[in-house]
């Protein structure tokens, strides 16, 4: 299903627009058109000096800076430090979140006890925890990890909880008919049934943790990491560095997405028709 509105071929022929027909550009080229146009525009602007050169480094400058940073190994080191911090926080937060979510999903009592407070907890914007966390755990590594873990915790919790809660009731009946015990139900039905949702949660948690990593590095005390470098870029007006950092941040986001998708496809094979 591509276009619902403009699906009448004859209509398109009658109204011939003055702009180049997008349909004539081959599909394979389409994804690259906008980025390439953007880069060309960038080059033109930065070279023509229309934009303030302080704010608009040329692409060559960015590449040069990238090469220099790569040679020094500096940016890579910061990048890896961020990544490590991110993953540690993610693992801790999502593990606790998923476990708690599953347990709450199973237990009606726990659900009722903890549900409201978790709901309220979720309404407190993540970054509002920064002052409290830095006060309780310090602005160092511990504080950052706690913050990242907190970011990963919520989506992992909510989705695994929902995963269990949304297992069709009819499956519970089935398990009764098959004379399953509690353990059988969990192993055969609850866990695999909740898995897709758990994955959704982990995927969000991954994204949230990455955001929180950047936030932690910007808002809590300096430490090796991309956040510090971005600060540096901002304060010294090193736009080339800033753009490099943005690129790395985006790259990780894309990689996480691909990874999560691939993993999900492998582990939840049965969903594919």
């Amino acid at each position, binding site marked *: 299903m591509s276009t619902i509105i403009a699906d009448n071929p004859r209509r398109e022929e009658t109204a011939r627009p003055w702009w180049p027909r997008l349909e004539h550009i081959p599909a394979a080229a389409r994804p690259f058109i906008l980025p390439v146009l953007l880069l060309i525009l960038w080059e033109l602007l930065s070279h023509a000096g229309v934009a303030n050169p302080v704010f608009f480094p040329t692409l060559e400058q960015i590449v040069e800076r990238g090469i220099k940073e790569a040679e020094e190994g500096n940016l890579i080191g910061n990048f890896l430090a961020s990544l490590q911090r991110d993953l540690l926080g993610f693992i801790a937060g999502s593990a606790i979140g998923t476990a708690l979510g599953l347990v709450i999903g199973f237990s009606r009592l726990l659900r009722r006890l903890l549900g409201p407070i978790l709901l309220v907890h979720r309404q407190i914007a993540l970054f509002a925890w920064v002052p409290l966390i830095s006060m309780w755990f*310090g602005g160092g590594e511990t504080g950052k990890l706690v913050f990242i873990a907190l970011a990963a915790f919520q989506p992992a919790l909510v989705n695994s909880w929902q995963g269990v809660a949304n297992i069709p009731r009819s499956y519970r009946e089935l398990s009764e008919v098959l004379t399953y015990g509690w353990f059988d139900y969990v192993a055969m039905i609850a866990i695999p049934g909740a898995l897709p949702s758990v994955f959704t949660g982990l995927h969000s948690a991954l994204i949230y943790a990455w955001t929180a990593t950047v936030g932690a590095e910007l808002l809590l005390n300096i430490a090796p990491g991309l956040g510090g470098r971005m600060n540096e870029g901002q304060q010294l007006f090193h736009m080339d560095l800033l753009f490099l950092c943005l690129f790395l941040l985006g790259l990780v986001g894309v990689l996480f997405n691909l990874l999560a998708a691939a993993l999900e496809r492998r582990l939840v094979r049965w969903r594919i028709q």
Partner: protein
Amino acid sequence: ETLLRIGYPGTGLDDRPFGYGDYIAIGHVKQLVEAEFKDQPDVKVTWTFFRGAGPALNESLAAGQLDFAAGLGDLPAIVGRSRGLATEFLASAGSHDPLYLAVPPNSSIHSVEDLRDHKVAQFRGTNLQIATDRVLEAHGLSEKNIRFVSLDSNAATAALVSGNVDASFGGSEYLDLAKHGVVKIIYSTKNDNPTLGRNSGLYVTADFEKAHPDYTAKVVEAFVKAAHFGADEANRQDVFEIWAKSGLPAESFATDFKDERLAHRLSPVVDDYIVARYKDQAERAKAYGLIKKDVDIDSWFNTKYLKQALTDQKLEHYWPTFDAKGQKLTDGEVEQTRAATN
């Protein structure tokens, strides 16, 4: 193994882990504390530099992640104490530290009075805050007349340069920029009332002091050595070079200290001036609503280690002392030293 964790409120340019402007930074670069423990391999000294300055350092103190706060400004220290952070004031780490008011070169702001209704960067919660408030007060203004944006020193510099704020109070960071014409300094406390400057101190946590009085003594010894080195006019250029590790050029320190002896600021001595300054700050902090409880200053000061170190190093009369109003009480031996001619 004992960890001896020292925190420093500030960073150099682009967040590099170096301080400037005080003898603590000298002790750090010359590794004087580490030297003190070189026979004790089980004692490890760590340094943490806080971009968020005093307030961030306080957080680490509260979380039990630091033993020494070296160079912590007066206001954050007082705030911490008012909230029950158990610290002891060991020595003064800096006083008479001037404030500069920087504006963009083409700014229409020519005096403190002109700041009214402008957007000004201020690093809230640091010793800049009350110092700034006092400057404003002296010029008939108050915090309410000004739109303050809380930014750390590095961010404030960037914001000023990029025109995001109209003015900024700060320290020697602005001198180099002024030299290059990027900003213009329109006011300094240097020739104003001598009580207007900023102060900072060397603190130890009460827990650490109780558990390790011997180590505490050694740390004080080390920093007194640093102060001794830093106060000596013969080392003037060396001191500036050491501070230049922070990324600020040595010349800007020369400008900062123009017509001023190093010992004027780089003194560990706790004299009437210091005691009076802290008492005054505590009162003002309360008056401005920055703290809610009274802070008892006298019981906070624990100068026995300092006295011991001064005695040990025969420096009891090395630094000059000042009275509560900032007038010199006694001359110090240090005033005999002369800058090396080169």
